């Protein structure tokens, strides 16, 4: 187990390092940000002076080493645009995004588990068909459009929920709903397939032959077996979920990391980009390592093979 964790850790470090390097290369390729920071009537020499002040006149290798040192010390420098600590800005936005991602994931997976269990328990073709259709319809509506429709219905017409901002629990509802429905569809598919696969396993037959209730078998035997691979997928999906929040953050003016990062990328605000990407990559590797360790603890088979 220790060796396993050590290997995962090495992989994690390599991942973060690779992400930072890609960010650096892409960043330097996108051009120097000076011209974006000054008003329209600033002249070329003003811009050059600013770029020099930001350190863009140094050799690339020096800039890269500087970035790596920043990575180790946790000091990514100040945002060019906002003139505040980049890491501070990123950390300030993290709770909002985590809140969104967490609830979307939690609600999505809880509903998916409930739905998949209901399908298995009732064996109802009708239920599976309904869920299948609902999933297909949700998957055919881009997030930004789905969010807009939610806002039109719940904020503009019914007036029951705020349409933007992060002010109260009520303002969490619509953005989470947008993301959670997408998550729900995905996990429902995975779980339904996994449970259906488990249903054909011999151990299920054994339990039923002992006189166990189908529901008991479903909850205590099949579900743990089915959810393990789904958890693994969920961990891998984290990057996708964080990426998916960008659109929702824009539509709901949700002060999250996604919006900050996309803006920073287009505005060439490299300190934020680097701090943000390192955060995302770290979150990704930590969550995935945790999931792997968890799965290995629950399923000790994988540890011995």
């Amino acid at each position: 187990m220790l060796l396993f964790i050590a290997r995962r850790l090495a992989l994690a470090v390599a991942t973060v390092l690779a992400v930072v390097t890609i960010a650096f290369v892409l960043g330097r390729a996108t051009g120097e940000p000076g011209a974006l920071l000054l008003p329209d009537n600033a002249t070329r020499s003003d811009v050059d002076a600013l770029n020099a002040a930001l350190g863009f006149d140094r050799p690339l290798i020096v800039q890269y080493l500087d970035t790596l040192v920043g990575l180790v010390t946790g000091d990514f420098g100040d945002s060019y645009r906002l003139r505040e600590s980049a890491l501070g800005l990123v950390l300030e936005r993290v709770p909002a995004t985590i809140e969104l991602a967490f609830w979307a994931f939690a609600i999505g997976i809880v509903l998916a588990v409930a739905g998949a269990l209901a399908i298995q328990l009732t064996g109802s073709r009708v239920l599976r068909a309904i869920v299948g259709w609902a999933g297909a319809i949700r998957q055919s509506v881009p997030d930004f459009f789905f969010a807009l429709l939610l806002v039109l219905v719940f904020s503009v017409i019914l007036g029951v929920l705020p349409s933007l901002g992060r002010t109260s629990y009520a303002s969490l509802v619509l953005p989470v709903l947008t993301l959670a429905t997408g998550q729900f569809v995905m996990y429902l598919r995975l779980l339904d397939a996994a449970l259906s696969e488990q249903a054909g396993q011999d151990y299920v037959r054994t339990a039923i032959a002992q006189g166990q209730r189908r529901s008991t078998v479903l909850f205590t035997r099949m579900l743990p077996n089915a959810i393990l691979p789904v958890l693994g997928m969920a961990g891998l999906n984290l990057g996708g979920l964080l990426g998916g929040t960008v659109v929702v953050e824009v539509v709901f003016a949700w002060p999250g990391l996604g919006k900050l990062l996309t803006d920073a990328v287009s505005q060439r605000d490299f300190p934020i980009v680097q701090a943000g990407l390192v955060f995302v990559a770290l979150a990704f590797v930590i969550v995935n390592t945790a999931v792997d360790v968890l799965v290995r603890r629950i399923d000790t088979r994988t540890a011995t093979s």
Partner: protein
Amino acid sequence: MTTSLVASPAPVVRRWRPRPGAVVGAIMLGSVLLLTAVVPLLPGYDPMAQDLRAALLPPLSDPGHPLGTDALGRDLLSRIALASAVTLGMTVLIVIMNALIGSFVGILAGYFGGRLETLITLVSNVTLAMPVVLLLIAICAVLRPSAGLTILVLGLTWWVGYARVTRNVAASLRRQDFVVSPLTQGADSIWVLTRHVVPNVWPHTLIIAATDVATIVLITSSLEYLGLGVQPPVPSWGSMIFDGQRHLAGDPWLALLPGLVMLLAVGGVQFLSQQFTAETRGGLLRKGGMR
């Protein structure tokens, strides 16, 4: 089974009986494909011709524009047909690229294992840990955003799912005797890979690809929202819905019609793909006692 030495051939003709979902799916997808194929042949087809004075005509109001016109007075039917071709084309290209790369990588990792596998895990972790949207924005800042770029970036990064599945399949194939046996007969790895591993892996790839179509359509349309993707004046579903949603209050069809077509296509593919994936669906054994 009889015990005579020469058994009579027992052809396993499994009659392919489509489930209702598959029929519905085929009809849905088929209608979109038909639309993309037939509309360009119609006399009034011109997705680019603008007429600002005939902008925002509602559907069925003008015989020249059966589905009406958009904000620049362009024929909506023509544009939907072109958008369908463009989006489906992009999606198919991306899916094919992902499937090829993912399967290639997965097969190598699964078959050879070891260091190569570690490297591939690292690469796939990096692509997963780096949100594709950010990557695309950054790349678009260097190069101009274009459909080609989107295809390239998504095509080169979204393959991890394929790699994971094919790696598992290839790893289990590696232990199968029929993969080992050609080696004992003098074959090399290339022979084994091309004749035994690849043909047995690719059905799995196909299944993922079918379910991935919906995901890719959704991702590309989200990217249109951020201005990354097919560039005007060429339409795509995502950009048509995005442009149309600004007129949602007055002229909702602008967003809803392309949305409907997207639903038909995405839903269609999904119902069709369930044909492959859900073979043994059923409750726990059987329900309701002896019956």
